[in-house]
């Protein structure tokens, strides 16, 4: 008996996945645990292995298609078996839009809080009718658009067509079409306009995830920022000596990561997260390390940083970076951090404020080490300084708590031999 193979849950937060490649084609024999396809989820590209034994009779979701969790992707059965009837239904993402399940303004019901419009989805893009019209007119693929409306519905403002949400004063002009964005070019340059048109690049899963998570963070998490400017002279010297004595290169980042883990042991209140029910204080120190990759950034987790030497940390960060570039990070490697570190020092950024990586309670933004005159005793001498900015979720980390952590961090960074003692 042939059976329909549904999109499995390949990451804890996965709601849909994009088939990257099929590793079996129709007619191929399939064993249990054979690699069927690779699927890009919100987290990473995952292997999709077969739970069934038989012949791949039909591929329902070709490479490139986006499939909701639990929607059919293929049929496996005996060779020559008919797939008729198994896939004729409407499950294959082609389900007609279910009408909004309700419900008008709360004012009409006795229980106002429960009656916001709710969309029932069946493997489809949730978009308002007006957005669908605009997409038809402009030739847009709505799969690439992030929905900011109720339940993730794509609404006009997501296409710049509904200025109401962002405009406060001036009435909106007609929504600009992406294909004819009026650049501030001289009139005589109109001939060259063709070549200067904007390019639409479809959103990758990673970009969609970044957009969604960071938007949620900035919208829902009350951020505030604390900055310190530390004397990095000793740290600079330590690194030079370490690199002279060791075979491997230790980066400033490695040292900062270790310093943070020490400071977190001494000021554990920052290693925490807010939940609606309770404040959760973590005992483990698992640091999310922001790593830039081609399509954006990922935050693999360095586990138990407080229990690892700086050399171990350095090696592990290198491994994680390489795996990130190759898109080989597993979901497990990217979840469960307790505190984040983002370092843009290598890009020449003096200081910046990072967006908190939910559900963590804080993120440290590390700037470049600057050569500056510093005062030592009574003399002004050439020195090194570094700025670090802590972004705190005010629901769990208050100003004094953040300040205490930064004070501990300063102590470690300015007397950096401690880094080697832990």
């Amino acid at each position, binding site marked *: 008996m042939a059976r329909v193979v549904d999109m499995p849950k390949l990451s804890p937060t996965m709601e849909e996945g994009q088939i990257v490649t099929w590793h079996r084609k129709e007619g191929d024999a399939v064993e249990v645990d054979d690699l069927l396809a690779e699927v890009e989820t919100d987290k990473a590209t995952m292997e999709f292995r077969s739970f069934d034994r038989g012949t791949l009779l039909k591929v329902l979701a070709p490479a490139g298609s986006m499939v909701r969790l639990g929607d059919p992707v293929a049929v496996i059965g005996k060779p020559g078996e008919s797939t008729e009837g198994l896939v004729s239904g409407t499950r294959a993402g082609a389900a007609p839009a279910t009408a*909004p399940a309700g419900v008008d303004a709360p004012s*009409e019901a*006795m229980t106002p809080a429960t009656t*916001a419009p709710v969309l029932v989805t069946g493997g489809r893009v949730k978009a308002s*009718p007006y957005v*669908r019209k605009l997409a038809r007119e402009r030739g847009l693929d709505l799969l690439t658009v992030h929905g900011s409306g109720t339940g993730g519905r794509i609404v006009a403002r997501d296409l710049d067509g509904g200025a*109401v949400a962002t405009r406060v004063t001036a*009435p909106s002009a007609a929504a600009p079409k992406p294909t004819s964005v009026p650049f501030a070019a001289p009139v005589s340059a109109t001939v060259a306009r063709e070549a200067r048109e904007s390019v639409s690049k479809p959103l990758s899963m990673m970009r969609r995830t970044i957009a969604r998570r960071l938007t949620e963070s900035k919208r829902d998490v009350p951020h505030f920022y604390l900055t310190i400017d530390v004397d990095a002279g000793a740290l600079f010297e330590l690194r030079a000596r370490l690199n002279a004595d060791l075979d491997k290169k230790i980066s400033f980042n490695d040292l900062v990561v270790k310093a943070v883990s020490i400071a977190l042991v001494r000021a554990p209140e920052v290693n925490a997260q807010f939940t609606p029910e309770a404040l959760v204080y973590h005992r483990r120190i698992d640091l999310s390390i922001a790593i830039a990759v081609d399509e954006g950034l990922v935050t693999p987790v360095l586990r138990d940083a407080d229990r690892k030497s700086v050399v171990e940390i350095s090696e592990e960060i290198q491994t994680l970076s390489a795996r990130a570039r190759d898109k080989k990070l597993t979901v497990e490697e990217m979840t469960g951090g307790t505190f984040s570190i983002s370092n843009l020092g290598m890009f020449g950024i003096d200081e910046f404020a990072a967006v908190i990586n939910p559900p963590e309670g804080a993120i440290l933004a590390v700037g470049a080490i600057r050569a500056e005159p510093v005062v030592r005793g009574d003399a002004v001498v050439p020195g090194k300084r570094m700025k670090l900015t802590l972004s705190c979720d005010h629901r769990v980390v208050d100003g004094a708590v953040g300040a205490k952590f930064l004070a501990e961090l300063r102590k470690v960074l300015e007397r950096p031999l401690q880094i080697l003692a832990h």
Partner: protein
Amino acid sequence: MKSMRFREAVREAIAEEMERDDRVFLMGEEVGQYQGAYKVSEGLLERFGERRVIDTPITEAGFAGIGIGAAMVGLRPIIEFMTWNFSAVAFDQILNNAAKLRQMSGGQLSVPVVFRGPNASARQVGSQHSHAMEHFYVNVPGLKVIAPATPADAKGMLKTAIRDEDPVLYLESETLYSVKGDVPEGEHLVPFGKARIAREGTDCTLISYSRMVHVCLDAAEALAAKGIDCEVIDLRSLRPLDEETIVASLTKTHRAVVAYEGWPYGGVGAEVVDRLQRLAFDELDAPILRVTTMDVPMPYNAKLEQLVIPQAHRIIDAVERVTYRRT
């Protein structure tokens, strides 16, 4: 232009039409000697006499039927219900006689009668005297249902109603009677089936009629301060309904809220929503929301009454939802 109150506008329409056409008369409870329960017909008895300003006993089915019968043979009765709540006991006359005589007679008969009076909530008059009756009547083919919000429309539409060949149900509001407004001088007729844009806007369409238009205008002012520019449409004619104007507005704003007195199950608002989703589906950026009377009989207690009746803040809330300012 002449500034006058809503009740004076109604009175002036009646008087002008009675002056113009001897077939027009006013009949109802306390319209004559008492000068009108809400003083709408004040002075008309003195001016037109007992033949044409006729006090009735409390017999809504009786005098509604008499109005229909007189209209059927060529008169132009204006039948006043002291409030539309009492039309319920004459419902059969309106449903089975006024609305159907033309069809049952194969088109031989017309029924040019006007029924009018205050409708919907007043102030703490309790569950039996606070009905928004239009929702029952708009359902009936053969009837026309009108609900003006301003003195100008009150006058212009009542004059049109009196001249109309079909039965017209004309709904006033006790809480509108003292509202002042400019009314054009001279012959002023407002056609049916044409909505009025009470306020222009670009972000969300607020659709309403009668007293609730004024509540919508208040809500629109408050929303303007928040950067949301609402267009307020006064339907004023509920049957026929001006599809063109509401569709044009939705095509501009892509979002709509319908606010009116009356229960949420069915009714005028549900009809408006149906037309919009049918005629302008592709223009919708959000589900259309309705702000209505809560789904309970009207309580007497003043605070609970205000809770049950639609208020500006509920309209504001709905507009913020359809513009995705909140979820």
